[in-house]
């Protein structure tokens, strides 16, 4: 059961893989997977971008603060030195100020403001000469600059202030160059924009980060920091690129699978070579899809269907053949599709002219459909039918002949029965009454009349013998042979004993050689020996030293039995008459007999499938050979 269900599920998967639903399924799967991947990657990139922006903004503000801090320290040092050094030597102060301005980027000018808040010294002086000796608070300072006041104490007494004017744009410019072109920023102080990158736009606010830059207790600058549009789109481009890559990869896979499926589905058709082969096939070939569309038909199949190819291709079976669903063929096609098992069928189609043609159909499962091969077997079928008819006729004829033969046989039987019964009665009467005549009227009958009556009696006796022999002959072989293993030696000994009377008063030398056993009908073989031996005894009657040899030998690889005598023999010229019925080579006066004995021998040997023949010479004797067919035991 488990194996079965496993096999079933494997088959279901296979079916799905090869079905038409697989490809759309695969396509959708890849598209969704790509979009999902794209989405997650996109949001990851964006959050990364935000984080990076915040880090950069942080970095920016701390770098700027550091710079401000160094400037502040430098000015502090100047304020300390003011009391001891710069009061006497103004040049020294200016030198230091110039040095700081050159060293610290962003430090635009350094001013000495005395305790009365009047401006006494300033580096650089050129642009600001007019404000010298003016009250510092009354000077119209550039609002985009930040003024850093550092007081100079001498013990408890305030000497004045070192005032550093810092240009915000300048102080941040190296930091901006540090962060490169990927970010833009805007700086504002108390709502006034003090710096703005060229490509600053409000649209970037979704990625923008707000930060404050604190210039100690002097000023707080608001920093709006954002990645540039190009940077954002370059980041987005990476994820779009990966989407593109994954989409095209999906497409590639789909195309690959499509072609693989297509190749599978029409693998028979895929090569032009195959198509050509199918086209030129002697057999009809059709490919039908699982939705019953004719996908391929070769010329033979079109002819067999009695349709044109164009009428069938791309159409369903039901369209081409109305009521196709109720045919046996349709059921088999259905089964082939459902079970993926090949089906066979012999189908007959009757032409419009009434001639029936027979087709042997082989329906094979093909991927997503079936392949039907059809072979026209009409001629074979006709030949078979012809053979069938001939056989039936032959059988009928055999039956008739057998009946005729049986009838003939019965007639023959009743004939021999009549012979046996009816012919003998008159003979008995002839013999009987002539005898009675002699017995009862002997005294009245002349000698000659008595002799005549004796002849009548003798002849009727002879005729009785003839009838008996004839019946024996006709009966021989009527019964079925009872073949069994027999000992010929036994049979010959028995025969010799039974023929004792015929040897009475004679000195016959009998030599019984070795006789191997054989397979034959014992009664019939005994009859053969009886006939041959009594012939041998009969035809040696005139010999003083009669001799009869019985033996066997191998002649031409075959076991041969023989009975040999040294009697009168016969002329070999008449050998063909020897085995005929009532054929005699000696007169009855010489040797009595009816001439049936050898005919019976021949018939028995023939029945056994053996051969019988004789060799003789007049006055020297005769040899009768016979075989009994079959194997020597």
């Amino acid at each position, binding site marked *: 059961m488990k194996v079965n269900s496993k096999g079933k599920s494997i088959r279901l998967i296979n079916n799905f893989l090869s079905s038409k639903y697989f490809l759309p399924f695969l396509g959708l799967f890849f598209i969704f997977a790509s979009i999902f991947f794209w989405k997650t990657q996109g949001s990851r990139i964006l959050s990364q971008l935000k984080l990076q922006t915040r880090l950069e903004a942080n970095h920016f503000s701390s770098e700027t603060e550091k710079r401000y801090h160094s400037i502040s320290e430098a000015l502090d040092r100047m304020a300390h030195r003011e009391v001891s050094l710069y009061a006497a030597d103004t040049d020294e102060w200016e030198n230091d100020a110039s040095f700081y301005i050159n060293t610290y980027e962003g430090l635009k000018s350094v001013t000495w403001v005395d305790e009365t808040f009047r401006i006494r010294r300033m580096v650089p002086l050129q642009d600001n000469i007019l404000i010298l000796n003016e009250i510092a608070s009354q000077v119209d300072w550039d609002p985009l600059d930040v003024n850093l006041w550092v007081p100079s104490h001498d013990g408890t007494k305030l000497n004045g202030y070192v005032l550093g004017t810092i240009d915000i744009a300048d102080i941040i410019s190296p930091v901006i160059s540090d962060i490169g072109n990927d970010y833009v920023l805007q700086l504002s102080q108390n709502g006034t924009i003090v710096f703005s990158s060229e490509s600053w736009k409000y649209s970037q606010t979704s990625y923008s980060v707000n930060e404050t830059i604190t210039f100690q207790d002097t000023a707080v600058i608001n920093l709006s920091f954002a990645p540039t549009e190009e940077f954002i789109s370059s980041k987005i481009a990476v994820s779009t690129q990966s989407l593109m890559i994954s989409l095209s990869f999906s497409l590639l896979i789909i195309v690959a699978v499509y072609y693989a499926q297509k190749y599978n589905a029409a693998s028979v058709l895929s090569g032009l070579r195959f198509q050509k082969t199918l086209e030129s096939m002697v057999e009809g070939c059709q490919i039908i899809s699982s939705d019953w569309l004719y996908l391929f038909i070769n010329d033979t199949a079109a002819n067999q269907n009695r349709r044109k190819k164009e009428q069938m291709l791309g159409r369903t079976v039901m369209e081409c053949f109305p009521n196709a669903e109720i045919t046996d063929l349709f059921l088999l096609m259905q089964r082939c599709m459902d079970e993926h098992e090949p089906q066979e069928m012999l189908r007959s189609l009757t032409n419009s002219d009434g001639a029936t043609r027979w087709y042997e159909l082989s329906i094979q499962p093909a991927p997503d459909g079936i392949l039907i091969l059809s072979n026209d077997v009409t001629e074979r079928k006709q030949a078979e039918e012809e053979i069938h008819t001939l056989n039936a006729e032959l059988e009928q004829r055999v039956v008739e002949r057998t009946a005729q033969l049986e009838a003939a046989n019965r007639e023959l039987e009743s004939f021999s029965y009549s012979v046996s019964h009816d012919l003998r009665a008159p003979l*008995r009467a002839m013999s009987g009454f002539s005898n009675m005549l002699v017995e009862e009227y002997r005294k009245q009958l002349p000698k000659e009349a008595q002799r005549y009556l004796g002849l009548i009696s003798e002849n009727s006796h002879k005729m009785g013998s003839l009838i008996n022999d004839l019946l024996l002959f006709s009966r021989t072989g009527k019964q079925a042979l009872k073949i069994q293993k027999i000992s010929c030696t036994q049979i010959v000994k028995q025969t010799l004993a039974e023929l004792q009377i015929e040897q009475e008063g004679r000195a016959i030398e009998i030599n019984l050689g070795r006789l191997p056993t054989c397979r034959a009908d014992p009664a019939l073989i005994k009859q053969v020996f009886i006939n041959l031996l009594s012939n041998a005894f009969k035809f040696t009657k005139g010999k003083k030293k009669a001799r009869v040899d019985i033996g066997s030998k191998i002649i031409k690889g075959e076991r041969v039995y023989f009975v040999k005598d040294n009697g009168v023999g016969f002329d070999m010229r008449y050998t063909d008459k020897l085995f005929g019925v009532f054929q005699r080579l000696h007169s009855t006066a010489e040797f009595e007999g009816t001439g049936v004995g050898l005919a019976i021998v021949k018939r028995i040997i023939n029945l056994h499938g053996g051969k019988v023949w004789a060799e003789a010479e007049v006055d020297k004797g005769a040899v009768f050979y016979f075989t009994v067919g079959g194997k020597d035991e």
Partner: protein
Amino acid sequence: MNNQKVEILLVEDNPSDEELTLRALKKYKLSNNIFVVRDGAEALDYIFGTGKYSERDTNHHPRVILLDLKLPKVDGLEVLSKIKADPKTKHIPVVVLTSSSEESDVVESYKLGANSYIVKPVDFKQFTESIRELGMYWLLLNEAPTQM
């Protein structure tokens, strides 16, 4: 009708054979009470006391029936089977005396219960000898069972 008890019933259609048989039997003084019927139907009538033999005393049966096989009307084998099928007559010895030496006749006769089967020889001397032997055996030597 002969009032003397019939000892031999001879069923024979051939008058020559009948005469020869009768002569042989008489020659050896085997019986003077021989009754001859000439076809199978008459034989059955005689044995079962039917037809023209309806007045015959059927308590008495012949000591032996000599039966030819080839007979007019009802053939010998049928006569034999009827005799041997009836408990009242089946003990009567039946000697088939016929010209036929057909194996099938011999086998069938013995199967139906024939007591002996003798082929009539053509030769007169042999024939007489056969009749003498069968008469000697069935009339003089054979002990018939007690009448039923």
